[in-house]
């Protein structure tokens, strides 16, 4: 029973980690711009992140090595440093996008208060919560809170889509015509927003922090978390696309603000829908801000071999000052970026697309060690994990080559 509860909590946490401002922005815009046509990209992203999250969790359980430990050990100092710098740049942008997103959501409640004041309040609240809450508390509170976004799943069903059209959206197809580049930009965006690297940094470090052990049955917990947590996250993504396709696509409205995305729930369920959407967004975006900042601090400390962690042990021994300083420093940098007046939605698009460039460097060492019998023993990759791992590595390499040209050629999707 305890194990079932642990799996359920893990699934919720994985779900909370999956849905962030990137999902909200890219999925809503993809649905508004192309109807159901880009639904096929959701399972591609979900299977990709589930594959690598499972691998990272398994490597962490067996070898006690989180992702950046593996990056440094397999790539060496030079390429590892390049990966670290790229990852930290993306993490800073991600946290800036999420913190800015919190302020945007607060602005929808408190329109009279200046954006910069809300920014300060949002960032301070998040730092305070991180300071006082234990690791699992953070994971669960924001995971549970993010479940309010289920209002989109209910809304998608309630809006009675043509299920035949929805199903046909899952069949990959080649888009031609004047919107071709924009179509591919959003295809890359939806896949990339599902596979952003901070999710696996956080996930694998959490596995080491919580002391996952194969003898305790934690490999099964890892597999369930990766499979069901991210699959449920995929259902949220599909719901966002379906709602935007029904409500915004016919009217040619592009949801460039989070408030527009929230309208999808309000039009369907009135004030209650709006409130649930706002709450869900707040928790999802807040959780992602914490995960992003932690991921940056984990990467930094693990690369240099310094003590890290938010666990009771790390707090008790007070041996992780660099780790603590790093995540606070990331928050400060993110706050400064937002304070300059940069648009958080635009930052989101840049952070997601730039993240694609760092993905192959992050996932290659994970794949190498997961298929290395000397380290993994009998828990080495099976044929399915190996095939999927190689497939996604090739796919991400191709996507990383086209991501930036698409970003600039389409003027970040606005044509």
């Amino acid at each position, binding site marked *: 029973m305890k194990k079932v509860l642990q799996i359920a909590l893990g699934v919720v946490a994985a779900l909370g980690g999956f849905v962030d401002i990137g999902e909200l922005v890219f999925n809503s815009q993809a649905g508004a711009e192309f109807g159901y046509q880009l639904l096929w990209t959701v399972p591609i992203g979900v299977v990709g992140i589930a594959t690598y999250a499972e691998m990272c969790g398994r490597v962490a359980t067996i070898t*006690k090595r989180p992702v950046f430990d593996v990056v440094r050990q397999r790539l060496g*100092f030079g390429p*590892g*440093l390049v990966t670290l710098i790229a990852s930290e740049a993306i993490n800073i942008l991600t946290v800036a996008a999420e913190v800015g997103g919190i302020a945007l959501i607060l602005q929808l409640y408190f329109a009279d208060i200046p954006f910069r004041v809300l920014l300060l309040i949002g960032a301070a609240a998040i730092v305070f919560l991180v300071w006082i809450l234990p690791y699992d508390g953070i994971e669960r509170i924001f995971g549970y809170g993010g479940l309010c976004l289920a209002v989109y799943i209910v809304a998608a069903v309630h809006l009675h889509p043509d299920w035949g059209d929805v199903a046909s959206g899952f069949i990959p197809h080649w888009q031609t015509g004047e919107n071709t580049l924009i179509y591919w930009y959003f295809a890359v965006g939806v896949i990339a927003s599902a596979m952003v690297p901070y999710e696996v940094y956080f996930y694998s470090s959490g596995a080491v922090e919580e002391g996952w052990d194969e003898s305790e049955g934690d490999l099964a917990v890892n597999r369930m978390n990766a499979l069901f947590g991210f699959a449920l996250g995929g259902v949220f993504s599909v719901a966002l696309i379906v709602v935007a396709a029904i409500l915004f696509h016919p009217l040619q409205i592009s949801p460039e603000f989070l408030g527009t995305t929230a309208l999808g729930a309000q039009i369907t369920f009135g004030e209650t829908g709006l409130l649930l959407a706002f709450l869900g967004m707040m928790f999802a975006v807040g959780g992602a801000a914490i995960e992003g900042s932690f991921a940056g601090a984990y990467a930094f400390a693990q690369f*240099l*071999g310094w003590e890290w962690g938010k666990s009771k042990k790390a707090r008790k021994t007070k041996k992780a000052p660099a780790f603590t300083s790093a995540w606070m420093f990331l928050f400060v940098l993110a706050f400064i970026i937002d304070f300059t007046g940069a648009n958080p939605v635009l930052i989101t698009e840049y952070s997601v697309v730039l993240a694609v460039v760092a993905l192959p460097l992050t996932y290659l060492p994970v794949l190498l060690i997961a298929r*290395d019998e000397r380290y993994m023993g009998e828990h080495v990759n099976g044929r399915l994990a190996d095939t999927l791992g190689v497939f996604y590595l090739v796919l991400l390499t191709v996507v990383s080559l086209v991501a930036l040209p698409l970003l600039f050629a389409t003027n970040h999707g606005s044509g």
Partner: protein
Amino acid sequence: MSAVGTQVNLGLRLLDDQLLDSDEHRCGRVDDIQLKGSPGSRTEVSALLVGPGSWTGRLRKPAAYLVEGLAPDYMHLIPWSEVTRIGTSVRLSHTAKELGLETNEGRNVQWVGSPPRGTMRVSELLRSRLVTSSGTELGRVWDVRAERQTELPDEHVNEAWRVTGLITGRRGWEERIGLSSEGDPAQGELFMPWDSVLELADGIVRVTDPGAR
């Protein structure tokens, strides 16, 4: 799992690994490995180098210059005798404080510059090209192979680890990143025996011509 055998590729199995002190606290990474000896003659692992002063040796120009300008110019030297276990991390026999890892003073601190006389660093070898005495290029050095006597995987790890050769060629790169297994030493382009090494200078490891061996 992850136990080291008697034939060890130092780049793959030791360099960049996590260091744990005797209290199980993380206290840095194996940023470089100091070897005692000279090209072609008996050479053994003598210490682990930890800290920013050793980073420049791991990078190519101009990144090395940049890091040299930004990072502190000292590193810690952990005598090989301090290593008690090598597995998924490298375990030390004393605390970080006792080893002086929390300060930049003491006998275990080494300043940036050329390695002390009679020593070399694994990073020097890994940056180098293999060239025969007649000038034939044999490729880049991807890893350094060492040998120890004990069969027991996790015990006596701090016994003498003697350098036996250099790994080069395409398979060498595959071995370095762990794509293929560390093979048995074999003559040829993949494995260059240490006793055929003549000198190490300016990023070039000069070895005897194959016909002269």
